[in-house]
C-alpha cells in the first residue's frame, strides 16, 4: 500500500459509515465533475476500499495516489488523480 502525506484534494467524497459499495458508487459520480489532473479524496471506514479503490483505478485508467496517513482518525483517506 502506498502512503501519502498532505495531499491537497479538489473534491472530497465523505463515505464514512456509509455501506459498501458506496465507496465505489459515489466517487465514480464525483470524478466525472473533476478536470483532468485534479485530485479526489475519498474518506471511508470500509477496509475493503483499500483493495477496491486501487483496483478500480487500474481498471478505469485513473491514477491511485495512495492512502493518507492520519493516526488520529478512525477512517481512511484515499486519493485518486483524474487522468481522463
Amino acid at each position, binding site marked *: 500500500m502506498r502512503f501519502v502525506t498532505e495531499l491537497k484534494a479538489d473534491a472530497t467524497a465523505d463515505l464514512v459509515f456509509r*455501506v459498501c459499495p458506496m465507496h465505489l458508487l459515489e466517487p465514480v459520480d464525483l470524478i466525472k465533475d473533476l478536470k483532468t489532473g485534479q485530485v479526489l479524496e475519498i474518506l471511508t471506514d470500509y477496509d475493503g476500499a483499500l483493495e477496491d479503490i486501487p483496483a478500480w483505478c487500474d481498471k478505469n485508467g485513473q491514477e491511485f495516489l495512495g492512502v493518507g496517513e492520519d493516526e488520529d482518525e478512525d477512517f481512511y483517506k484515499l486519493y485518486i488523480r483524474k487522468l481522463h
Partner: protein
Amino acid sequence: MKRVYLDHAAATPVRREVLEAMLPYFRERFGNPSAVYDLGSEIKDVLEEQREKVARLINAHRDEVVFTSSGAEANNLAIKGVALANLKKGRRIIISAIEHHSVLNAARYLEKFHDFEATFLPVDKYGLVEPERLRKSLSPETLLVSIQHASNEVGTIQNIRELAAVCREQGVIFHTDAVATAGQVPVDVKDLQVDLLTLNGPALGAPKGVGTLFFRHKTRLVPQIHGGIQENGRRGGTENVPAIVGLGEAAVLARQELAGKAKYLTGLRDLLVAGVKERVPCVVHTGHPTQRLPGHVSFCIEGIEGEALVFMLTSQGIYANTGSACASKALKTSPVLCALGIHPELAQGSVVFTFNTDNSAEDVNYVLYHLPLAVGRLRSFSPVWRKRTAAAVGE
C-alpha cells in the same frame, strides 16, 4: 351522530390529492428503485423528485434528506446515528425534559449501552428552554443537543434559532424534532441553523409509515437500519415508494398552503380557547399563550380525569386526546406537564384538541356545547372536586 375529530396530532387522514398521487405506485409503477432496468431506474428518479420536494419545504438541499419509516425512526437516526459517528468528540448529550419518547429513549439507550451521559434540560412554566440555561449546561464533552421545535402535548414553539445558535458557537451538533411544526409554521433549516431536523409524513397529510431526517452536509450518521445502499448508504431497506410519493405531494401542498392554513387554524384555536374560558370554570391553559402551534389547544381541567372526559366526549362524537398519543394509554401523569411544574392532581385533567383544515367553527361550537356538560357531569361525582368546592365555600 355528528363526528368532530380533533386529534390531528395523533393521526390525520391522508389527503385526497396525496392518495391519488400514491395510487400508481402500488400496482403500475411498482419497481424496486435499486433495480438497474427501467422499471426500477424510473422509480429511483421518482424518489429523487420527492426528495427535492421535501427539501424545498424546509429550504434544504435534496442531498441532505434521508427518508425513514417514521418521525420516531428519524429521531433515532439523528440521536444514535450522530452519537455513534462521533464517539471521539464526546459522550454527553443534552435533551429537553419534554422531548418525545423517541428522543428520550434514544438518549437513554446511549446511556445504557454506550456509556453516554444524558442531561435533561428543565423548561419554564410554558415549556420553553432558556437559551442561557442551555449555554450554561454545555461542556467540552457535549456532542449533541436535541430540543423539539414544538411540543405536541402543550403546543409551545421553542426559540430554536437562539438555541441552535448557542450550540453553533460551541461547535455542538443541534437536532430538532419538527414533527409538530412542519406544515403548521415555517420550518426553514437555513433560518433555524439546525444541523438535523425530523419530519413525519402523517402530520403533513401523508400516510403513516414515512418520515424524513434532514442532516446538514458533512454531518456523519451511523445507519440504524443495516442493509443495502438505499438512501445513499445511510438507511437500509427497500424504500416505501408509495408513502414517499405521498410525502412529496404533501410537502408541495404544505408549502403552498402554509400561510392560509396557519391563519385558519389560529382562528379555530382562539375560538375554542375563548369559549372554554367563558363556559368552564377552573381551567388552566397549558403551554405558551401565544407562541404556540396554530391548531393546538391544551387544558388541564380541575376536578376531572382527562381519560374520563375523552371517553365522555367520544360518546358525543368528539375525538380529543389527553396528551401525546403515545403517552396517553399509559394512564400515568404526563412527564411533560410535570416538567412545566403543573401539580400532578391537576395534570390528571389534561385534554388536548388539535385541529386541521377540515375542521370548522361549527365543530368548535359543537365542542363548546358538549364540553361544559361533560365536565359538569364528571365533576358532580368527583370527590376531589367536591372537596375543592367545599373548601371554597368554607373560605
